[in-house]
């Protein structure tokens, strides 16, 4: 059953002249600072497009749940008692209380702590205390918990949308499924397991993070301390992100815009494509020398492929609006307010159900945990400091524009292929111009958002 949502707020389309705010070469500061735009984004973006909610390995068994958010909506993402993945609004139908307050767990029934209404994990109401005090029929679907009507997974990544008219998830992802597949398929059976996270936040608009995730221009400046650190010892001078040194636009890496707001920074062409090629450029981590020698002793030449699994995959695969695969992390952007954003870097571990790693899986994961901790500790913190300083700078009301025109108007620099995929040198801002065009289109729309209740 589908309910039409109340359209009590001003339609986003009528808020502004969006063509004025988003121009070919620049955007207005208001898109980062205006609370009314942020409120509209919670429906037009974080309701109307496919929003990443979690990974299937976080709810491996029936009755498992995690609590997440879809925009500002609290959500219980769960696998119900029949195995179906659902995204329930974490909201009691009665008075609106959240039903579940834990980050994760396992439950067949959610009982509201306030008045004791209880629900099955399908969302169906189970019982209310002292029902003889009610004249209504609780079999009416309107008493069941509201849930996101469209929940779908792509190879373990769970997305959801409230938009009845959105394309299928597969169509929404489009060509970016190719780098996602490649990212997964370097692990045995293309599987990963989420293993906790580096959880960060910053005082700034969520789009500052999405502007950054495809950006090859900031690296040598924003991450200067990290690059100097990576080069402090001569024998590691060509590791880590050292391929950004010199002139990054003349390296084989590139940026790509892949439609529907998705963008992709592909640094793999900088790396020698061979067994052990990634490991050869992985910077030092706790245990590096021990594990490399131990695995080489046991597995000989086969150790190189295994060591590559502890190495960072040099890509940023960014699915609009809130999901990014980079290195071995799943990065999730979660807007909190117009000027506050959570950025959670979920770690991933290798899964080896068939034993193709010959018993090395625990060791390679121990090393992979340590390689993953490097960038959030030594790189991301500096980006987040810069995002906060952008938000402070944007308080200058009279200086209205933010520029993103690097590469614009230079003949032959930006290329479009037959599938509409746009590529440009690594430091180009074409990815930003393109995704923000899509953002504008979505903000000009009046999407039909619906919730579902079990019948």
């Amino acid at each position, binding site marked *: 059953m589908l309910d039409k949502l109340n359209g009590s707020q001003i339609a986003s389309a009528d808020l502004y002249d969006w063509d004025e705010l988003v121009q070919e070469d620049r955007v207005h500061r208001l898109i980062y600072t205006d609370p009314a735009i942020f409120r509209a984004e919670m429906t037009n973006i974080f309701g109307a497009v496919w929003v990443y909610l979690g990974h299937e390995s976080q709810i491996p068994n029936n009755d498992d749940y995690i609590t997440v958010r879809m925009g500002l909506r609290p959500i219980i993402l769960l696998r119900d008692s029949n195995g179906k993945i659902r995204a329930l609004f974490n909201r009691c139908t009665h008075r609106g209380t959240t039903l579940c307050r834990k980050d994760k767990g396992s439950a067949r029934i959610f009982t509201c702590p306030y008045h004791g209404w209880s629900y099955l994990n399908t969302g169906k109401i189970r019982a209310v205390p002292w029902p003889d005090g009610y004249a209504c029929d609780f079999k009416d679907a309107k008493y069941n918990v509201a849930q996101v009507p469209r929940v779908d997974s792509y190879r373990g990544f769970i997305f959801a949308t409230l938009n009845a008219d959105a394309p299928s998830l597969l169509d929404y992802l489009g060509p970016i499924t190719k780098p996602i597949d490649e990212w997964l398929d370097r692990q045995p059976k293309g599987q990963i397991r989420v293993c906790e996270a580096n959880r960060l*936040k910053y005082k700034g608009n969520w789009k500052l993070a999405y502007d950054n995730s495809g950006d090859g221009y900031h690296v040598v400046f*924003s991450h200067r301390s990290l690059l100097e650190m990576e080069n402090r010892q001569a024998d590691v001078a060509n590791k880590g992100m050292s391929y950004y040194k010199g002139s990054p636009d003349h390296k084989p890496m590139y940026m790509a815009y892949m439609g529907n707001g998705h963008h992709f920074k592909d640094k793999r062409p900088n790396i020698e494509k061979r067994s052990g090629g990634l490991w050869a450029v992985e910077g030092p981590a*706790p245990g590096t020398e021990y594990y490399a020698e131990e695995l080489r002793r046991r597995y000989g030449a086969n150790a190189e492929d295994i060591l590559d699994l502890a190495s960072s995959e040099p890509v940023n695969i960014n699915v609009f609006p809130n999901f990014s695969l980079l290195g071995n992390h799943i990065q999730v952007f979660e807007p909190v307010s117009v000027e506050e954003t959570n950025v959670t870097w979920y770690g991933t571990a290798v899964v080896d159900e068939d034993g193709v790693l010959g018993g090395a899986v625990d060791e390679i994961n121990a090393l992979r945990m340590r390689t*993953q901790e*490097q960038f959030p500790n*030594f790189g991301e*913190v*500096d980006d987040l400091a810069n995002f906060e300083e952008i938000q402070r700078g944007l308080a200058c009301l009279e200086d209205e524009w933010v520029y993103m025109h690097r590469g614009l108007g230079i003949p032959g620099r930006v290329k479009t292929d037959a599938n509409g995929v746009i590529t440009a040198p690594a430091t180009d801002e074409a990815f930003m111009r393109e995704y923000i065009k899509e953002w504008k289109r979505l903000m000009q729309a009046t999407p039909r958002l619906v919730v579902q209740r079990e019948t």
Partner: protein
Amino acid sequence: MQQLTHDPSLSSYYVNEAFYRRLIEHFTDWQKDELAITAADERDRFRALVEKEARLLDQLRFDEWLAMYVPEFIYWVPGTPDAGDPRREIAISFDDRRRMEDRIYRLRTGYAWSQAPKSRTMRMVSNVEVFASGAARMVRSNYLISEFRVDGTRYLSGWCGHRFVERGGRWQIEVRQVNLIDCDQNLRNPSIVL
């Protein structure tokens, strides 16, 4: 004193399977009344070391601070309240000597924007309790870090588990586990050494 085969500033051989197993063993179920050391002089000795460490970190005297540690140490900031198994889950930080020296090097470049300008911190440590662990000593202390940076002061709090070992007549830190009370929540600018 034990001779090291490898310089732990340059390579990391000691973070291995046996090391992880010992680490987990040492940091499991260690705060037991029957292991508590109540002798005032011994408690005072470790209280003084924990206070000295807090002062050195507040003053960013990292070289002197590192000298309080054995060559092969771990600085561990778990990302979950029960700390978990660091082989199976990522931590907020899990630094061996080389990575800690990376961390300090980075902070000193002047280009670590998350620490430019630097935070001003003042640590308070209290509730120091000492527990026996064979010949080693495990020390629990509570901390409150007041951190001022750019637009205000914030407070980080939690408790530390130190593992001290005696080397050449000096008590040195082998492991420091820093447990933030909000370790599993999104943290703003976690760029200081806690």
